[in-house]
């Protein structure tokens, strides 16, 4: 079985996995980093969102063979103590209900806010439309992204 050297949250990891194994399952099953969630497996729900070289990417569609040497950031790498402004905004607004999709939401929001420091409500709604929240905490996600933007600026 092939061996891959991955750079995740700034640290090197070596994993042995089939080339077609999605990064999602490498993170979850091989590396015990379970913050990145499985939702649909076809890139439709956004629960598995990570950053690859700074861009929000669906890790369920990304084969491990294609991400060697790239900078991968997962929810565990945003901050360990929930001190990142986006995490703080999520707490301030009390966004989660079940909470399962929220890691993916936060990963989409952090990548988006890197690109757009001062987004409008409609830009937030467009940017976050790839992430499904089945509990429909959408009003709060919208507010939290706004609050996070003001914290970051």
């Amino acid at each position, binding site marked *: 079985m092939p061996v891959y050297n991955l750079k995740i949250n700034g640290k090197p990891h070596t994993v042995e996995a089939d080339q077609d194994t999605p990064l999602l399952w490498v993170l979850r099953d091989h590396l015990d980093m379970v*913050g990145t969630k*499985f939702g649909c497996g076809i890139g439709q729900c956004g629960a598995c969102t990570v950053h690859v070289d700074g861009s929000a990417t669906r890790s369920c569609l990304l084969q491990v063979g294609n991400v060697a040497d790239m900078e991968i950031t997962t929810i565990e790498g945003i901050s360990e103590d929930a001190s990142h402004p986006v995490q703080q905004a999520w*707490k301030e607004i*009390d966004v989660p209900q*079940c909470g399962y999709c929220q890691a993916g939401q936060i990963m989409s929001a952090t990548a988006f806010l890197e690109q757009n420091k001062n987004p409008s409500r409609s830009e937030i709604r467009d940017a976050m439309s790839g992430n*499904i929240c089945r*509990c*429909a905490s959408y009003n709060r996600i919208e507010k939290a992204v706004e609050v996070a933007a003001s914290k970051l600026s």
Partner: protein
Amino acid sequence: MKKIMSPSVSRRSFIKTSALAGGGILIGFNLFQACKPEAAPPVDIAQLNFNDFNAFIKIADNGMVTIFSPNPEIGQGVKTSMPMLIAEELDVSWDNVHVVQGALDTKNFTRQVAGGSQSLRQGWEPLRQTGATARQMLINAAAAKWGVDPSTCTTKNGVITNGNGDKLGYGEVVKEAAALEVPDNVVLKDPKDFKIIGTDAGNVDIDKITTGKPLYGMDYKEEGMVYAVVLRPPSFGKELESFDATDAKSISGVQDVIRFGNKVAVLANNTWAAMKGKKALKAVWTSDSELESTEKHDKILTGLLDGKEFTTLRADGDVKKAFAQADQVIERTYESPFLPHNCMEPMNFFADVTADKVRLVGPIQTPARTAQRVAELLERDPQQVSVDMTRMGGGFGRRLYGDFALEAAEISKLAQKPIKVVYSREDDMSAGIYRPSIKYRIKASVKDGNITGYHLKEASVNSNMYGLIPNFFPAGAIENYQVDVANYDSDITTGAWRAPYTNFLSFAEQSFFDEIAEILEVDRIKLRLDLLQKVKGTTDDRIQYSPERLENVIKVAVDKSGWGNAKEGVYQGFSAYYCHNTHVAEVADVVLENDIPVVKKVTCIVDCGIVVNPLGAKNQIEGGVIDGVGHAMYGDFSFKDGAPVDTNFNTYRLIRINETPVVETHFIESDIAPTGLGEPTLPPAGAAVANAIKAAKGIRLYKQPFVKHMKSNAPLG
């Protein structure tokens, strides 16, 4: 302070204290015994073991309080709100409270259910009594130390003060308190003295959620555990004849392939390998009956409505006579598709079946019932079966059914190792226990401008509406009133889906009343209020709702939504409903963008009694309303050849953030005991939107999902 506690309830709850080796005390209580006032008291409290309790308060020497929350957390917020009730009466600062999901198993924990929006309603008295009892014991211990009368002592934020101004922290008297008798009667706070109840408390798991810590069943793993992905019948009604696992076994990581009943499990050392192994299985399926389809159900349900075979659930007066004597008879039919639950966390469960133990871990709304079913399946002593509950990535009713836990137990038994069953999204959507497809036909008679008769017929796949629903509005408001049900037995599994039955019935009835108002050319609010007048002072104790509370939410909704004064281009729709013990009114604001109706805002008025945690309560309301709007607009789930047509989110549409209205919530101020919020704001949403679309486009919708039937331009009932 007022004394409202019944000692007998306290005795039954009960409370037992014990000094902890590391300092502090532990107080145990049986919440669910306490929730059932008819429960028999324990024979001898002194003989009870801690195993008889299912929730605990731990008070450390330094005064820190840990509350072990017993109920399953599915996103409804009870892990935060239930401990708030204890902390309030214990009179500690919420900042000093640490909440932990109780370490659970079926021996120690019984009657733990998340369902029916009942947790807070049923926990309201016993949880506060528990906190108050612990507080009184701490006071008694301090008073004994000081040699003063306990009644001269007061508490605040975990500190006891006597008449002389001496102070002792809870942590300083916990050891003495543990040795004291449990008081027979304690006082509960007057609601006006509440410091925690009624204030905003954030989700207790927030930091774990936002940093990606393991919380959910999907995250659970143990040394030596293997992943199991299961091939299930591709259609309801098919049986497994044979299978070839040669290719599956050749996939690296696949350890074993095991048939159990009508299914085949692929076991692998990682999820991906197990999923690939499942895809590589070659199975032959047979069926000896005609496979079902939505087309067939449509004809069958219409046939049931046209037929004569019904079970009557409630009949007042004589509807036939009312129709015969009417000036006008109005009849409409409303149709819903099946709906899958689609919890974001797909179904999964861990099982480790060994010679002397059956350990189950995972997301489950009904741990006790599931443990019992596993014991029966494996023919084991129920005492050997334990269940640990993880936080759940959504429930919506799907996790009331422990089918996935039974699968896990069976596979672990056959594989003789710890395993975790993991569903893919396709598995989750095609092995569902769906909201059944339903048709309602409602017929009303009008005489001299009054509604004199109302006949509701339900035709449903599988089960029918449950007992209390025929006593919801408009029962009691119309002299001649009848509710009839008929059902068709299907191979397709169906069950509870958030706000079972009322999730669609509310749409039908609240659309119907809106249309009657239009036909009669009367004000649609007045029509509802006039009906409610007739229920006031009713002596019919079957009536579930309060006409006064429903009237009140309707009036406040008119006021808060700007009803009748909408801006140019904004079209409003009204709906009001009672279910799950909560009264709700909603107004949807719709605008037309490129002639397409877009829901911009929903104003939601809720009377749920005392609001325990406004921050969490509003989250439930916002979610319930948007969920209701989303499924009414987009939820389209049909069957062909016994199988669902859509099995993932590429073709099955769930509402997304860019389609979401703003939800504006207003609570009715109240000192009445709280009722639940996980469900009751969902049912009225569909009709509020449909009635607004009628105002905007002139199209009356009778079928869900709206987007499909607006397109087909065939909405007539």
